[in-house]
């Protein structure tokens, strides 16, 4: 018998783009300080909101630069091959990883399916207990 590998899955709910930005930035700051790799799959572009909230965040300039290096633009490509390419390039097998997914329910489900499929395929190379996926759902869609 063998176990199917699973990542830790976390959900979150937000009511506006600014709400998402104010929730995610202190969290992203903490991840960077702890050397955790942050990877994003966003259905919409949050760059403006992130930059606005970041300008008010108390953090070292170096940390702010690293936060801005995270991709806050939309990743509309949801085909497996594109998601696989991003994960192959960005997942850090030597440190913890957090994958942030934000979009409507279909987008989130599709991206998660691709992530799970990639990790099943690559489990021998990656410690899957070091990967956390946080799915952000916009409340107005319920």
């Amino acid at each position: 018998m063998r176990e199917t590998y699973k990542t830790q899955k976390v959900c979150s709910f937000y009511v506006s783009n600014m709400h998402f930005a104010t929730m995610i930035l202190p969290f992203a700051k903490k991840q960077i300080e702890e050397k955790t790799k942050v990877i994003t799959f966003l259905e919409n572009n949050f760059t403006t909101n992130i930059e606005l909230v970041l300008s008010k965040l108390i953090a070292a300039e170096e940390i702010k630069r690293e936060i801005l290096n995270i991709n806050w633009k939309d990743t509309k490509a949801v085909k497996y091959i594109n998601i696989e390419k991003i994960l192959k390039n960005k997942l850090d097998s030597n440190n913890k990883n957090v994958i942030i997914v934000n979009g409507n329910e279909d987008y989130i489900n599709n991206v998660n399916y691709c992530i799970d499929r990639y990790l099943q395929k690559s489990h021998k190379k990656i410690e899957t207990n070091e990967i956390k996926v946080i799915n952000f759902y916009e409340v107005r869609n319920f």
Partner: protein
Amino acid sequence: MKYGTFNENIKEILDKHNAIFNTAGEHKIEEVFEGYKKSKEEIEII
């Protein structure tokens, strides 16, 4: 902070996750939604 009953749509989403994240950080779902229980365990053994 605890909430009352939740609608089935949210419950379906909660069932797919191990924890919930908000501005106060990460929590067990049961700590945020009073009365919530996962519908089934999702451990797959092949």
